[in-house]
């Protein structure tokens, strides 16, 4: 436990000092998205990496959070701080209700059902033009404001988003290392054995699905209030796949792995500008390579790689 805390403190210090390196600039804006994507990847990882239940519709929950926050603060002129939790609660309740029938399914069927759910949500964003503005999007969403500070610059948003991201990181690490986290992993490894020792697997899966949706919704609200403009294109199937890629590349069942995956997949396009239209191919290729050669994700694979290189050098010395 002491080690966990140390790791978290080191990570927080790294995150908080990072802006000094860049002193504003465009990259700060990208790092804000790394924060939002880290939250999303952690949310999906709780479901996929810990409980072993796939979702191909998480962009939908992300979008619902963004749109609910956006609509409540523009059309109904709510305060963003009120809109965010209300959005999260609505999305959480929805996920809870949908979760009961959907999470009865396993494997491919669950993947298909959540895929369908994500697509339905995406269609709703596009078609309910009066409410969401349709394909042309929703603009004029207010920035967040606290104690007289308006979060309208990249640096301010960086600290806002990363403050909340760090809270999500700590929350998830605590959960993972608790009775509930163990029960989730138990369901993942052997559902029947978990049930036999008293874990209500069905309810637990639905609960973690709802919690995952709540975190995704929160990330969506924050996205809406930092961007001030949202459109359905950000919440489609491609983004669900991108989230999945982040989780798998970073490392299933690892909170810090989710950060690595989110950082890599958010920063990568910035360096691959020329190949923009082929990003989905690159993600697909990365996913295949990772699953083949680093099934544990970056968080386990990279230290392993170093160990192997170190070992083979040691071997060469002997020869």
């Amino acid at each position: 436990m002491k080690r966990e805390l140390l790791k978290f403190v080191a990570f927080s210090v790294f995150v908080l000092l990072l802006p000094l390196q860049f002193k504003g600039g465009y990259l700060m804006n990208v790092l804000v998205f790394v924060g939002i994507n880290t939250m999303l990847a952690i949310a999906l990882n709780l479901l996929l990496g810990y409980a072993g239940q796939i979702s191909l519709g998480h962009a939908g929950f992300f979008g619902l959070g963004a749109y609910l926050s956006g609509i409540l603060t523009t059309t109904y002129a709510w305060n963003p701080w009120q809109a965010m939790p209300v959005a999260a609660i609505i999305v959480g309740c929805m996920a809870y209700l949908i979760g009961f029938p959907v999470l009865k399914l396993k494997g491919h069927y669950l993947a298909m059902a959540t895929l369908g759910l994500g697509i339905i949500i995406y269609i709703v964003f596009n078609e309910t033009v009066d409410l969401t503005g349709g394909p042309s999007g929703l603009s004029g969403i207010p920035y967040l404001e606290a104690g007289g500070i308006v979060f309208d610059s990249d640096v301010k948003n960086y600290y806002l988003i990363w403050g909340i991201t760090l809270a999500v990181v700590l929350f998830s690490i605590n959960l993972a290392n608790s009775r509930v986290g163990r029960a989730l992993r138990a369901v993942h490894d052997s559902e029947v054995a978990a049930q036999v020792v008293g874990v209500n697997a069905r309810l637990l899966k639905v609960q973690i699905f709802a919690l995952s949706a709540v975190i995704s919704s929160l990330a969506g609200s924050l996205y809406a209030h930092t961007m001030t403009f949202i459109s359905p294109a950000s919440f489609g199937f491609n983004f669900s796949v991108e989230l999945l890629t982040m989780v798998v590349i970073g490392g299933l069942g690892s909170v810090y792995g989710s950060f690595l995956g989110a950082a890599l997949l958010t920063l990568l396009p910035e360096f691959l500008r020329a190949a923009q239209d082929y990003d989905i191919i690159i993600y697909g290729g990365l996913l295949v390579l990772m699953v083949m050669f680093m099934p544990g994700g970056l968080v386990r694979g990279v230290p392993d790689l170093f160990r192997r290189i170190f070992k083979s050098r040691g071997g060469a010395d002997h020869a």
Partner: protein
Amino acid sequence: MLEVSGITQIFGGVTALEDVSFRVNRGDITGVIGPNGAGKTTLFNIITGIYTQTSGKVVFEDKDISGLPPEKLARLAMVRTFQNIELFGGMTVHENVMVGMHTKSSSGMLSCALKMPWSISEERRIRNDSMKWLEFTGITELAEVEAGNLPFGKGRLLEIARALAVEPRIILMDEPAAGLNSQETLGLAHLIKRIRDLGITVVLVEHDMELVMDICDRIVVLNLGRKLAEGTPREIQENPEVIAAYLGDDD
């Protein structure tokens, strides 16, 4: 303590069990034996809530438990082990047993994630108390090993330790000696007796006749989905029908 009455199970057109009834007395070790395909595992799966029977009922401590799911049965202090050991392979040996204490703890998702004081002290209690069962089964030194890396025999012990952590009043073991060498089987026989000495009622499905005859107080014999006989090991050994079922009829 456990009463099975008139259990019939039909899969598609196949009758796997037909009108099976027997009783298990508190504090006994009861063996369920029979040739392959006799319906032993099906019977276990019905008692422990994995399957729901076509008809008949199961009464545990005066409560009708027919059709209750396994997690409810764990709360009523009934637990089981599996023939092909079901471990949580990605977790350590210690963590496996800690999951066994799930029903003996109650912190929810939020209080765990927010590290509320009661969940911290509960976590400490789970961590300490679970060690007791590692000691009881003699696998303390493996506590930090990933369960997926255990040799089969040790995995069997871990599965039993995890089941005991539920603090059951009855434990059902499906072929606990399957896959064990003779040394390990001896150790298992001793362990099962020690479990009974804790006051836990034991029911086991087993093929190892020597083990069954050695440790069981009572034996139920199934054949072709029906109960063939019931009695003490000596009575069973002398029962001509049982001998016929196992060795084949002369005619």
